[in-house]
């Protein structure tokens, strides 16, 4: 009996020929990641262990992205702790403001997340790198501390759910829509403790940016990871930027899945998740009249080049509705620069949108676009829990960047066709 991609990667890193679902193992990790919210706790715990050094200064990434540029004194103190730790331990991949990006946009771009690797991060959206064929998963700060000391972590081998997307992508449908659609089908705990594998013609045709958006939201179905087997698109993306040697891992032909789900392209139109769970999805044609106060395009889910290009295509020559604030947050400094070169920032500002430096900011109700009581936002982010973007009495809807850009123009949730 063969192994799924997650099983194979876990087995290799645990020094075993075979692992099976349910087995508890200790495995080597290729990269340990933390941000300005989770790392301070991890640093305190690391100090308690009593080791003098981190396991490998080239295999730790520290990215101050959540409350940066720092929003208040307390968050500045947190970032300072991170910065001082990075200096003390000569952490190679510490990214200061001005060089940073939203962690899950940044690490792939920097070639620090690679096929066949295990990456753990003290951030739930670490599952993003499954798009590159890695077994990557979110953990807590104490896990991060232990991994910084030992270079390993404990794992329960997950069983795997296989999702097959047959057929062609409909207009304006992206990886974000595929993942929202499947969360709508299986629920926010539909893949609890599981690995998800994404297969099929639609997945093969997805760009890397779209794949990253899709795997980013595996956690919103409760999954440990969401993986796409490496193909030519993957290798074209990682090869020029890889900071380490890597060996792609491919699925065994006789791999055993707990369950197989099959979806067809003609059933999937652009999706919108209604408050207050990502599983409350509807196709764009079934949304009805939802007026908006704010639209956010950005985040570790949809702040990449493709997302900005799509938004610009729709916003070109248009104005944001007078009742709406549109915030556009490119994922990394490189993306800001590229968007500038391509003239996208000009289009956004001419449309009367705000363009921000990279930050997680409003996605988690941190800063830069907090909602008041009763306000309603449409965001390309990943969560719409109660109070996620501000006041517990506010509402967040989730969509892809095309829907978000069109809706910012219309002042209500709508398909791009209504404004183009």
């Amino acid at each position, binding site marked *: 009996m063969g192994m799924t991609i997650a099983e194979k990667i876990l087995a290799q890193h645990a020094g075993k020929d075979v692992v099976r679902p349910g087995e508890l193992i200790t495995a080597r990790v290729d990269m340990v990641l933390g941000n300005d919210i989770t790392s301070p706790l991890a640093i305190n715990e690391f100090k308690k262990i009593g080791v003098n050094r981190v396991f490998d200064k080239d295999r730790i990434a520290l990215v101050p992205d959540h409350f940066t540029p720092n929003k208040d004194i307390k968050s500045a103190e947190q970032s300072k702790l991170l910065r001082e730790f990075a200096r003390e331990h000569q952490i190679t991949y510490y990214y200061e403001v001005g060089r940073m990006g939203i962690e899950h946009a940044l690490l792939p771009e920097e070639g620090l997340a690679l096929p066949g690797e295990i990456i753990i991060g003290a951030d*739930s959206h670490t599952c993003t790198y499954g798009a590159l064929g890695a077994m990557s998963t979110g953990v807590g700060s104490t896990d991060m501390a*232990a991994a910084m000391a030992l270079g390993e972590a404990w794992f329960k081998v997950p069983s795997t759910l296989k999702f097959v997307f047959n057929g062609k992508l409909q207009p304006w449908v992206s990886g974000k829509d595929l993942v929202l659609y499947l969360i709508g089908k299986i629920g926010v705990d539909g893949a609890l403790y599981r690995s998800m594998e994404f297969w099929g013609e639609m997945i093969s045709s997805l760009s890397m940016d779209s794949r990253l958006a899709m795997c980013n939201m595996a956690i919103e179905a409760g999954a440990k990871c969401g993986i796409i087997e490496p193909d030519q698109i993957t290798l074209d993306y990682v090869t020029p930027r890889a900071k380490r040697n890597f060996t792609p891992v491919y699925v065994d032909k006789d791999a055993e899945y707990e369950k197989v789900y099959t979806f067809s392209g003609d059933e999937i139109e652009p999706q919108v998740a209604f408050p207050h769970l990502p599983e409350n999805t509807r196709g764009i044609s079934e949304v009805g009249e939802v007026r908006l106060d704010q639209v956010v395009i950005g985040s570790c889910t949809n702040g990449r080049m493709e997302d900005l290009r799509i938004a610009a295509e729709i916003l070109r020559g248009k104005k944001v509705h007078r009742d709406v604030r549109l915030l556009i947050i490119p994922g990394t400094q490189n993306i800001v620069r590229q968007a500038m070169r391509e003239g996208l920032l000009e289009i956004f500002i001419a449309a009367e949108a705000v363009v921000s430096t990279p930050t997680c900011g409003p996605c988690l109700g941190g800063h830069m676009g907090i909602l008041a009581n009763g306000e309603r936002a449409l965001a390309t982010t990943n969560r719409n829990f109660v109070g996620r973007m501000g006041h517990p009495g506010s509402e967040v809807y989730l969509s892809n960047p095309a829907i978000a850009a069109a809706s910012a123009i219309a002042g209500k949730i709508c398909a791009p066709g209504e404004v183009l």
Partner: protein
Amino acid sequence: MQGYVWKFGNDIDTDAIIPARYLNTSDPAELAKHLMEDADESFPSKVKAGDMIVALKNFGCGSSREHAPLAIKAGGVACVIAHSFARIFYRNAINIGLPILESPAAAEKIEQGHEIRVDLAAGTIENLSTGEIYQAAPFPPFMQTIMDKGGLIGYVKWRLESEQS
């Protein structure tokens, strides 16, 4: 351990347990002041040391923030029982030594205000208000060892020491 129950529903997310607007500190006592605030505003003032939380499916879904189980622990909650836990919350609780038990039957039957007695080692939950007894699945030996060492840091220190000797 024995205590009174606060009951919650399905999919209690980490933003409900500790909203991100308070994450500019890692101080557990400071975090505990805002425990479950967006689910029940007066919860921080009502919860007492030794109380227990019982919830339905997918407790702790969402963010990886360890601030969530830390706030629960610092808030004096002795144990969390749920039908199921989100996976990062589950490992965080084990790693920081917050007692948790998975028991669909207990999660279903126990109501707000019930008094319960929990035997962690045996995995039994006794509902003193109704007389019912529920059995939670036992922890695998590896996880039990982590918990016996007071959490992952204690476990790592113990392992490093035993490797040296």
